[in-house]
């Protein structure tokens, strides 16, 4: 879309719509994001990984990134959704994962903050269940500040949680969505897709998208016309 057209759009909705077509979720990822997801699906961690990898890919790192990745889970998250499984991880992360199991939410927050203060980590993923008392606004603010100060992004997955007070810069609500049919076996599950609602963000208007990981980048499509978007081709919408 030509840039001159943006000046013609005056109302916010149209502006947001225009931006949402140009936008790719991994571009300009904030330091601290929260992803709300159900405890009986793998979508939360899946989207967090996809967003993190997309952000890593779009940031300008010339040589191969070998920095480790910290994945912190509390005990209830391990029980609900299991532990990360190395053969199923994205290929570029398989050798780099360091996994932490914390018994309590306080320990998990400590581990997250220590991870954020470490300069040798690519990003930190946290999985917390419910709304623990320890994770109040102050704790969330600490995490945001640490992430911004040391430049290590934090992707915090909240399983089965209410939308509480938080200082995260982007807050998503994610559910699984029907995946596109693979080319060779139309009845098989395809590349993972998620119906993601961005309900609070600093740098972007809220909205709802179908996000899909096509192996190279994260593609955002409007939620109601999945078939159309798929027909339009799988190019990242940022290119359009």
């Amino acid at each position, binding site marked *: 879309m030509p840039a001159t057209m943006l000046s013609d759009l005056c109302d916010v909705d149209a502006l947001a719509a225009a931006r949402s077509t140009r936008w790719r979720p991994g571009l300009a990822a904030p330091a601290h994001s929260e992803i709300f997801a159900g405890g009986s699906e793998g979508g939360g961690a899946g989207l967090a990984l996809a967003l993190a990898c997309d952000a890593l890919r779009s940031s300008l790192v010339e040589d191969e990134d070998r920095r480790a990745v910290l994945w912190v889970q509390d005990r209830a998250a391990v029980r609900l959704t299991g532990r990360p499984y190395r053969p*199923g991880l994205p290929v570029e992360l398989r050798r780099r994962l360091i996994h932490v199991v914390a018994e309590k939410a306080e320990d998990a927050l400590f581990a997250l903050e220590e991870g954020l203060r470490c300069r040798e980590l690519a990003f930190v993923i946290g999985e917390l269940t419910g709304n623990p008392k320890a994770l109040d606004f102050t704790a969330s603010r600490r995490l945001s500040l640490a992430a911004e100060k040391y430049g290590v992004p934090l992707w915090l997955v909240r399983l089965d949680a209410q939308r509480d007070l938080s200082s995260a810069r982007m807050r998503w609500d994610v559910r699984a969505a029907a995946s596109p049919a693979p080319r060779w076996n139309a*009845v098989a599950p395809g590349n993972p897709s998620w119906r993601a609602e961005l309900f609070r963000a600093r740098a972007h208007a809220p909205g709802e998208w179908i996000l899909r990981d096509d192996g190279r980048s994260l593609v955002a499509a409007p939620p109601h016309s999945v078939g159309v978007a798929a027909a339009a081709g799988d190019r990242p919408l940022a290119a359009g």
Partner: protein
Amino acid sequence: MWLPRLAIDRWRLGEGCARGEGPDADPLALIAETAHGPRIDAVNDAGRAAGARRGMMLADARTLCPRLKVAPSDPEGDLAFLGKLAVWAQRWGPWSALDAPDGLVIDVTAVAHLFGGETRLLADAQAAFARRRLTARLAIAPTAGAAWALSHFGPERAILQPGDDAAACLEELPVAALRLDDEVLVVLRRLGLKRLGDLHGIGRSALHRRFRNRKSPAANPLIRMDQLLGRVSEPLLPVVRRQAPLVQRRLLEPIRHRELLDQVVADLAGDMARELEGKGQGARRLEIGLWRVDGEVAMRHLELSAATRDPAHVCRLFSAKLDDVDAGFGIEMVRLRASWTEPLALEQGDIEAAAETQGTSLAACLDRLTVRLGEKAVRRPVLHASHMPERAQRWRPPLEREPAAQEELRFHARPLKLLDRAEKIAVLYATPDGHPKAFRWRGQVREIARVEGPERIAPEWWRSKSTARLRDYYRIEDTAGCRYWIYRHGLMEDGRGGLPDWFLQGLCA
């Protein structure tokens, strides 16, 4: 280097007499008390001439030679003497190891020219031992096993050059030259294998089958033979006098409060940092000991994921460990010891201040996590060679080097997360032995919309019982879009149980 008469030589040195003179002229045996009575550990020349042998009961020996004198043997003293000898023997090489109870191994690689060749080195060593009135049999060979064999059973002062064919040179030696246990020697003798060359004569696979359950080198002639020929490595423990860096503070006044203890620990960490810096070392394991006035000692250990000597980091880690120390009536001495150190080059210091601005290093971060959350909580997944999905991944310490493993097969689609235990699901079949149409998991019924499978994974017969059932894995997507990895445990008619159960094992992204 073999000292065949170490015990007797030591006794003679203690008596201060020359060989065959004074008290040594009479038959004498050194004995040890056993459950069945005194047993002879060593005999002198006169005793040997009279018929006493090592390993004989004293009563039997007395019937042969009624005037046999006895003295108690002293194995601990012999071992300590051997330890001193090992250090003394480092004059012929930079590295030596004990081969208890009566041998020494010295590494003379690239040393012989200093003595004018290997022959003259051996002559020099023989002369030195003779001056100390010790009987020694010496040999030089490329491997420790070959040197042992030559010194015990080979010619006097034998030398095996690296270019020689060791198997051919040693084939005349008896099988006892392989350092085997007695019962293995009996087995070999019954098999008619008397010389090393005989072992080459029969096939390796036959020997391997005969000794397949013997894992220890002393019980398996094949391993010993490989060590002798240098096909497998044989680690030896060197005698090196190494002192662990140690700092301590004796306190004028016993301390009972935490702030003072923290101050002492900080001082000690500073001392330790200087000590380690002088040696160019970093600590991997630290032990702190707190001596209390009433005689109790509290010890705390700390393991670090990478070598460090940063005092602030050490203090910070110890502060978590010292929370549960009971000071009692007061602590009067604190000692810090680095029992495991690794070389660490000098570098710019002041990591804590740098951490405030630039962030911590990964090793420091992992240390803090490990100290607070425990060893088991911070780990990394590594691949393990197994078909079973839950066995194909193991958890190892985070900075440990990854073991070599085969890469995952690209056409295997695996879930992002695996449950610790597969959860049982109730299913509604679409076809009798195909995939289900709907299933109930965690109290919720889900309809299956898309499915891929089965991927059949058979049980590992070399590991599991014969009644273990195979698994048919399916990747599925339900009508809501959630993707799972489920399997059927067994087949309908496989005769290994009733109707097969279904389990949900993994969650896909």
